[in-house]
């Protein structure tokens, strides 16, 4: 296979080196233009994200590793001293890496989905620069397909992996759809805003915001389309809400009090209390009955850990799917590599057959001509199949793929069929001429 990859990622390089190697879109376009006119190269594509910068190449002949590192430093602007952080992979290993990247198996956050979009963008960019060839097109498309396949057939991308998204997951486990749910947001700091953004994205549209500084509450209320309420929130606010998120920097609980406890005790709807503050904002005594669910930061960290563990288990199945796609791509490549030779072989054999049939036709009665035609075709098919099988075998072992050596290999075998041997001998002679 003629596929090469040089790149670095979060596993092999520090953030500082990754920053130096990162390529902006105009820089990628320039590099692709340069690569598409380079000697010994038939195709190129570049994938640059915050965690990796990888250059995929389809060369005529494999480059040596030093040449690839020099090329990588020139394209990315990475100092040669840092080039040791880059990995070089070839053929099946390069394809396997590409498919794993697409599947999110090589991502810092296992199973993340953004990488698939980034890979599609890299492919589109390379295509627009007419920098790809048949092999790279096939490799990239196969990787994208594999990425989708892995996400469809495994749970590698399921479950929240940050505290804010875990809060949404918990709310969805309790309420189902969050559209139409009422949320009381206590606090207007970064954590509160992050959680609110996630909930807003999940469909929550009805908000009350309580914050010590009313101006900050107003800013958040405007962003979410909600309204400001007093601080600390009252029993009526908690009674109104389906979900309370609190993330203030207060030294003592702010969602607390006898009136609040009464309101919670009286209500007949489920209430989810999410306490994202340390020290805690919500009085644990409020979880008075079975329909009140109270969670703290520690619980969400446990949930995130459980989700990551579940993803790791799914990764084992994902690896099997990756291997299947790599094997299919390899099979396609072998077929693709020998296809021109097989076509040439077919043409030579067909020419030979037609010539022999015409030469010998007069020795047969007209009613036997059709039979002669069928016989000659069957014989040629047999020879062609024999040589094609040898070519495919040679392709697996990366042997010489010329027609002459395929014929030599085929005749070297211990073949009992005298007719086939005869035709091969003729073919060898034709080949010499």
């Amino acid at each position, binding site marked *: 296979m003629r596929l090469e990859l040089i790149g670095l990622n979060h596993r092999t390089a520090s953030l500082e080196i990754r920053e130096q190697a990162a390529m902006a879109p105009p820089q990628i376009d320039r590099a692709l233009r340069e690569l598409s006119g380079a000697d010994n190269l038939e195709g190129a594509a570049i994938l640059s994200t915050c965690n990796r910068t990888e250059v995929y190449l389809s060369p005529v002949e494999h480059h040596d590793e030093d040449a690839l590192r020099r090329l990588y430093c020139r394209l990315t602007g990475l100092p040669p001293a840092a080039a040791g952080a880059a990995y070089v992979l070839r053929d099946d290993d390069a394809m396997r890496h590409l498919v794993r990247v697409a599947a999110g198996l090589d991502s810092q956050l296992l199973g993340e989905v953004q990488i698939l979009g980034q890979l599609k963008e890299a492919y589109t960019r390379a295509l627009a620069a007419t920098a790809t060839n048949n092999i790279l097109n096939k490799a990239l498309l196969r990787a994208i397909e594999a990425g989708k396949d892995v996400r469809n057939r495994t*749970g590698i991308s399921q479950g929240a992996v940050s505290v804010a998204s875990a809060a949404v997951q918990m709310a969805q486990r*309790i309420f189902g759809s969050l559209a139409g749910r009422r949320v009381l947001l206590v606090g207007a700091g970064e954590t509160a805003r992050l959680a609110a953004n996630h909930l807003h994205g999940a469909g929550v549209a009805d908000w009350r915001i309580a914050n010590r500084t009313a101006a900050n509450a107003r800013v958040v209320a405007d962003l979410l389309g909600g309204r400001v309420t007093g601080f600390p929130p009252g029993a009526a606010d908690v009674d109104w809400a389906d979900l309370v998120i609190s993330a203030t920097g207060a030294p003592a609980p702010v969602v607390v009090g006898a009136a609040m406890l009464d309101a919670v005790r009286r209500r*007949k709807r489920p209430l989810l209390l999410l306490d994202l503050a340390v020290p805690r904002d919500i009085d644990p005594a409020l979880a008075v*009955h079975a329909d009140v669910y109270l969670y703290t930061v520690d619980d969400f960290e446990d949930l995130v850990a459980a989700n990551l563990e579940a993803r790791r288990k799914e990764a084992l199945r994902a690896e099997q799917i990756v291997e299947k796609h790599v094997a299919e791509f390899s099979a396609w490549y072998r077929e693709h590599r020998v296809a021109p030779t097989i076509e040439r072989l077919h043409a030579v054999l067909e020419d030979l057959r037609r010539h022999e049939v015409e030469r010998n036709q007069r020795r047969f009665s007209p009613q036997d001509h059709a039979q002669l035609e069928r016989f000659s075709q069957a014989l040629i098919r047999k020879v062609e199949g024999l040589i094609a099988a040898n070519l495919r075998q040679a392709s697996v072992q990366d042997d010489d793929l010329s027609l002459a050596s395929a014929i030599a290999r085929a005749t070297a075998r211990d073949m009992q069929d005298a007719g086939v041997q005869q035709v091969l001998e003729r073919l060898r002679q034709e080949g010499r001429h």
Partner: protein
Amino acid sequence: MDQWLYLVLPQLLLVGFGVLLGIWAILLRRTDLGLEAVAIRFGWLAAAVLGVWIVALAVRQRQLPILNPGQLAFFLAALVWFGQCYAQRWVNQRLFAVLPLLGVVGLMVLGLVSGLHPGTVTRFLVGPEVAVHASLSLAGVALLLGCGVFATGHMILHQQIRRRRFDAWFQRLPSLGDLDRLRRLTLVTGTALVVASVATAMIWTSLRPGEEATVISHLHQMLLLAALLVALVVVDRRRWWSANGLAVGCVIMCGVMVTLLCVSVIEIFQGRGA
């Protein structure tokens, strides 16, 4: 023809549902959207075949499949599966395909073991009024069994959330809100159907006064069931209990219903009514 209707097709249906149960059991353990789509389509196909079988049988014996316990079990299995196909439009599958499928396969095995051929038919099982009563009753029972399944799911998920166990049950069950909504819907609809079936039975007994002995005892059990169900619906509408308390109540109610129903069916076919 009889061989096909009473033996071959039901056996084929059992095999088909067994395969479906196997597929959903695999899907319970691992995510595979492709296989899930195949299983859903296969489920619809199975429902269609069941429907065709019921129609063919009804035409052949001029009565719905209610002429013996075996037929009743198969008919109930069909209604449970129709309900499941309908419910899958709202809830994610996996557990909520496996549990009903276990019920369907169990009922089908029971039906085949009991035998589906009606033999000599008791006179009071013939006629449109008994078909209406039995259909309403079985549809109500199927919905209430569904209610029991959703309530069980609710209880499991509630426990997982309370105990902070973020395992596969937590990940794969539908949300508490969805389970509660479906539990309430099936409870209310199932109760309405059971009450209607009791009403039709009372009308039927008054129209055929010679057969009280056969049906009165069965009617007592159905009346008791209807009364308990109505009480549970009232508690549910007024939200006197917590959502989890109501789920527990529904599961207990399901147990009571199955017991009363078993006693009732045995009485009709093997007891005084036989």
